[in-house]
């Protein structure tokens, strides 16, 4: 996608590249013109790639020692923790890696929301991203079932039971999912199979996600279209590689802290009790990264409507490029949107908090208000804001605000004349 045609220097290279243009691809990836004003919130794409690879590699090793059988799964995990060389390390990296993966993906998503990265011409990148996020949630849920502890078993029971809300065929679907009349060995073996499959689907979608990104190029903090390559861009290598590398290392320090010093803090103690179909835990709570959606599910009194609300909360994101009617991408130039953005962040954090609390009394009331606001943000605030908001002047290029300090009014486009190419 770079302007000039690349030709390898060596004869062999040329021969190979004419038949399979891998060298052209490598050249494209290193030369890829990237906006030079990307801030650290843009480093999470690289961090997420690292997370995915870490999960796949540690997962492969775990799968060599794990036994997907209801009678042996729990003890095989203990075998990994005790007798497999560095098994404890691999398992703790994998278990905490899931949390770190979600931490990074939430930052990545909210980065996109702030800077309007989902808007034209990047809708496809965004939608692929939402599918990846959905698959991540599925993989995380399936993976949490595998150690066959109490939370595994009862979490699986609660989540699979959601399908029973579907009219007429619901019960049949649940039986089909379980492979029996309750969560049992057939459920465990199929969950293991699917847990192994999904990361590779995600990997494929990540390739598409990056491919789709490389067509229009990166968005940037001021959200304007830039010429590529130009003095507004830098080649991906070495500039972005080293910056992503630096951010990744800082991320790894946090990651290592969890793995080595508080490896179980993000998990639930009950999952160290072997699954027992006869004893229900006092509170069944999902992992922290699913809590906001769990809160939405429980805030609706009707089971079917609750499930619909929960699914809509995720799927509504896919419609975001069309719900947000503003032509201006970056919140930097949208004084009102900026405020609503932070209200949404607070709203999601509140949902996460009440999701961990029992669904009663004040917590339930807060959950309901927060759920209502969540949908209000996407269905009312965003569409209306695009028409009503008075945006501040947008600079013409990246270099201009950097060199001149504040944007020079003489060289800026007014909102009305700002068009997406």
């Amino acid at each position, binding site marked *: 996608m770079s302007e000039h045609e690349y030709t390898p220097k060596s004869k062999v290279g040329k021969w190979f590249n004419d038949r399979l243009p891998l060298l052209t691809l490598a050249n494209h990836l290193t030369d890829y013109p990237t906006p030079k004003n990307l801030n650290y919130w843009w480093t999470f794409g690289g961090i997420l790639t690292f997370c995915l690879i870490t999960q796949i590699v540690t997962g492969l090793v775990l799968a060599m020692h794990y036994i997907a059988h209801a009678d042996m799964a729990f003890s095989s995990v203990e075998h990994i923790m*005790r007798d497999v060389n560095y098994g404890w390390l691999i398992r703790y990296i994998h278990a905490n890696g899931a949390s770190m993966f979600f931490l990074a993906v939430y930052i990545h998503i909210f980065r996109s929301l702030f800077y309007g990265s989902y808007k034209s011409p990047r809708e496809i990148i965004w939608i692929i991203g939402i599918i990846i996020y959905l698959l991540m949630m599925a993989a995380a849920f399936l993976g949490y079932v595998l150690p066959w502890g109490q939370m595994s078993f009862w979490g699986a029971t609660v989540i699979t039971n959601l399908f029973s809300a579907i009219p007429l065929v619901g019960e049949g679907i649940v039986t089909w999912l379980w492979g029996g009349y309750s969560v049992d060995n057939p459920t465990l073996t199929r969950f293991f199979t699917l847990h192994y499959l999904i990361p590779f689907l995600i990997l494929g979608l990540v390739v598409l996600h990056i491919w789709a990104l490389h067509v229009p190029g990166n968005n940037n903090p001021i959200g304007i279209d830039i010429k590529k390559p130009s003095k507004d861009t830098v080649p991906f290598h070495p500039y972005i590689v080293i910056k992503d590398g630096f951010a990744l290392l800082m991320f790894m320090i946090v990651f290592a802290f969890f793995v*080595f010093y508080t490896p179980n803090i993000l998990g639930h103690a009950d999952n160290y009790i072997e699954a027992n179909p006869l004893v229900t835990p006092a509170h069944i709570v999902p992992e*922290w990264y699913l809590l906001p959606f769990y809160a939405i599910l429980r805030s609706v009194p009707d089971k079917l409507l609750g499930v619909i609300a929960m699914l809509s909360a995720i799927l509504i994101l896919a419609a975001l490029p069309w719900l947000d009617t503003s032509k201006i991408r970056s919140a930097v130039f949208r004084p009102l949107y900026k405020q609503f953005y932070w209200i949404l962040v607070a709203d999601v954090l509140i949902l996460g908090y009440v999701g961990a609390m029992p669904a009663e009394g004040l917590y339930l009331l807060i959950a309901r208000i927060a759920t209502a606001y969540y949908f209000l943000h996407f269905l009312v605030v965003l569409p209306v804001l695009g028409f009503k908001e008075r945006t501040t002047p947008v600079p013409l290029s990246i270099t201009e605000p950097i060199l001149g300090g504040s944007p020079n009014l003489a060289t800026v486009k007014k909102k009305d004349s700002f068009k997406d190419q």
Partner: protein
Amino acid sequence: MKNFFRISFLIALFFGFQFNSNAAEKVEYLKTDWSFKGPFGKFDRAALQRGYQVYQEVCSSCHSMKYLSYRNLVEKGGPEFSVEQAKAIAASFEVKDGPNADGEMFMRPGRLSDKFVMPYENEKAAQAANGGAYPPDMTVLVKARGGGVDYIYSLLQGYEDPPAGVTLDDGVYYNKYMYGNKIKMSNQLSDGLVEYSDGTNASVEQMAKDVTTFLMWTAEPHLETRHKMGFKAIVYLIILTVLVYFSMKRIWSRIETKV
């Protein structure tokens, strides 16, 4: 960059809040100084050996330890009994083996490779012998309870007479740290119950601390390795991060843009 750190801090704060709210229990657990806490925490070898003695003489008549083998008692980072001591411990148990050439099961003395012998044949037998309550396996017990070591340590010392108005069924005891305050295990520890070979005074508090330390080790046998490796890994990462930071500054200085 400043903004980035500010927001990261807020996220960290939120997480801290979450953990606190998860850990929020109504009762305040008894506190003691655990040698294994903190980034440089190590097990107190003598406490582990005494703790094993308490487990063996008091707990093991009801509570199994099914993921532990006698060989683990020798391993580094654990009680580190000598091989001879551990062999003698293993040999003091009768292990069911077989079938032999005649197709018969037979009993033989335990070996280092054997798993800890279970007090009961199966869960049903354990329940039958304990008034319907199953004494939980102790191997990962401290990780399976919200309060962790503090909870176990407190529970062992939490027996008191029930307050007025609380009636207890036969075989149920009052413990102020137990969830719901009712427990089917009677008070097990009393001063001088075991005779420590190292001469330590076997007070209830001492035994509770020793056996809880032992249970922490059975749940996390690689804790010491983990702490040591974690320190090295994080120091290494910090040094590398600093180096990469200055390389980044250098590279970006070519185009005079602040990073």
